[in-house]
């Protein structure tokens, strides 16, 4: 058996680990999608198919339980990698009252803000400044090590909220990683109707921050870039803008057939499936065997089955049990 360096072992483990999260996210979302089409899901369904590499790479690059991760609508892989319990998505999508939002809010809006994962509001761009505030709080409290990551899409970069937050993060030199998944579309709107710059990383200089471009379909590259960006942020080099180029391999939501995505675009390198590529990569580099991948697949499929089965047994919210109070103090409105 040839000698392998510690670094190589660690890298192999990271790749294998990230791949497994990608696989879990893919299988979970496939299940949610099929439940949606049979009318079993409460609320809307937005999937991350094609974006698992980019998302999982970010998730595994952060310190669970220490860092901050603000996912967006296509970050199932990153959420799971960062430590979200599998039951959280299962419960929210199936309308269980035991999910983290107790039926009050749902699906992509779920979060565990006390554990470093804010619960997004729908208004795109709005979470970036919230992560800034969390990081400022850490700094006030003397924690100079924590990194915060905020995920957005290409479309969200057009929001005023995004701009204000990134600029503010630059002024405060916050350890913020801004992960932009440029999946070529915002709902049906192609990037040429969204911005006119050559590449979204061109924005970095305008904020005075560091920018990184990455092929979002390539897990190994995503891991490398995010690990680097997180390390730079942690080391005090200020906000890091990471732009991943990829294609949304699904409709905007489960209701959308994405007929507006040109066939030709799907056949470009952008259209490659990051999960398949990552699997190939593991096999080609000898980091996993095809049998292993198959076994993982069976394992995660079973994990998904169990989580969904549990959530399906859960009680649903009942109006009678609601307090109908929005205030946390005991003031009487």
């Amino acid at each position, binding site marked *: 058996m040839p000698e392998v360096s510690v670094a190589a072992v660690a890298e192999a483990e990271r790749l294998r680990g990230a791949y497994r999260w990608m696989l879990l996210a893919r299988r979970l979302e496939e299940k949610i999608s099929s439940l949606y089409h049979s009318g079993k899901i409460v609320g809307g369904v937005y999937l991350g198919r094609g974006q698992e590499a980019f998302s999982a790479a970010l998730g595994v690059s952060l310190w669970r339980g220490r860092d901050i991760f603000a996912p967006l609508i296509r970050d199932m892989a990153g959420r799971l990698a960062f430590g979200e319990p599998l039951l959280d998505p299962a419960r929210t999508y199936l309308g269980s009252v035991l999910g983290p939002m107790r039926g009050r*809010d*749902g699906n992509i809006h779920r979060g565990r803000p006390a554990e470093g994962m804010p619960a997004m509001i*729908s208004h795109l761009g709005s979470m970036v400044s919230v992560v800034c505030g969390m990081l400022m709080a850490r700094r006030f409290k003397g924690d100079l090590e924590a990194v915060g990551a905020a995920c957005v899409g290409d*479309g969200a970069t057009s929001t005023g909220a995004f701009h204000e937050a990134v600029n503010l993060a630059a002024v405060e030199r916050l350890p913020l990683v801004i992960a932009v998944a440029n999946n070529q579309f915002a709902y*049906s709107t192609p990037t040429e109707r969204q911005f006119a710059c050559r590449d979204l990383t061109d924005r970095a200089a305008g904020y005075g921050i560091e920018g990184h471009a990455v092929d979002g379909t390539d897990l190994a590259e995503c891991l490398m870039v995010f690990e680097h960006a997180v390390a730079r942020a942690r080391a005090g080099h200020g906000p890091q803008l990471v732009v991943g180029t990829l294609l949304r391999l699904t409709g905007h939501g489960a209701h959308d057939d994405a007929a507006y995505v040109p066939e030709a675009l799907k056949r470009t390198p952008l259209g490659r499936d990051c999960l398949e590529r990552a699997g190939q990569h593991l096999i080609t580099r000898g980091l996993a065997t095809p049998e292993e991948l198959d076994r993982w697949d069976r394992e995660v499929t079973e994990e998904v089955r169990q989580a969904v089965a549990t959530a399906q047994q859960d009680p649903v919210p009942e109006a009678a049990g609601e307090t109908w109070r929005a205030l946390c103090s005991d003031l009487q409105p």
Partner: protein
Amino acid sequence: MALTYLEAIREAQHRALSTDPSVFIYGQDVAVFGGAFKATKNLSREYPGRVLDAPISEDAILGVAIGAALEGMRPIVEMQFADFSSLAFNQIVNQAATHFWRTGVPCPLVVRLPSGGTPGSGPFHSQMMESIYAHYPGLVVLTPATVGDAYSMLLEAIALDDPVIFCEHKFLYYHLKEEALPQESLPVGKARIARMGRHASVVTYSAMVHEALRAAADLALEGYEIEIIDLRSVKPIDSDTVLASVARTGRLLCVGESFPWGGVCAEVVARVVADGFNLLDAPPQRLNARDTPIPYHPNLWAAHRPTASAIAESLRRLLRF
């Protein structure tokens, strides 16, 4: 060939584009895709260059509409959901609403807000914002409840020289059908008696008109004739029609889907008691959604907003007084 409420909105835009060259449509995904709800389906093909996709920039979208309006255009802005107009709030209330009064130059534009709750939509895709916009001087705020009104009021809104907030209700988009578009219609600013009655008046608007009608049907079985007033426009409010109804019935229940503090129902009650105190045989009542964000789970949502049975319950209490 029955037409839905949503199709009526599309037809009105179609007609406006075809008759007035100064009309154009601006919003996210409104062009080739035809809008998140398909309210602009095919319009970009039929009117090339006049139905434009916007970036995710609600503030700038309104700024563009305002600038274009100042130059004599008549923009129709589609917000993807009413809730996202919170990001255009400043441009709407401070720029569009104040412009004519400040400068004497009108600012004719329409902001279409797909409003209101549907099951599973949650806190950020279900809001009613008419009470917020109506608070501000300089805006007209419309809340059509029928297919015919969706059509005729949208056409009138486009023709008005004032900025109009057009609150269309998503729950009515596909549910509500009519056989044909109206030839005639009440003008903006006039309320409609949706059902005649003599024991109590329900003043309401938008999707709640239909809940109120169902409640009235229930109470008819109990021997009560409930009059239903559909405000149609919440700014201006047609106080005369409301007062005339209260004069007939002596009892008022005002029903709205928005949050309970302030807003349309409080305004209607305050007007009625100021000008029609002696017409009342019982304390006027309000029924609104609960004072929490709008819940995502349908079980909670159904208990959050007023429904036919909640309205009927309120009416029974009011009639017992």
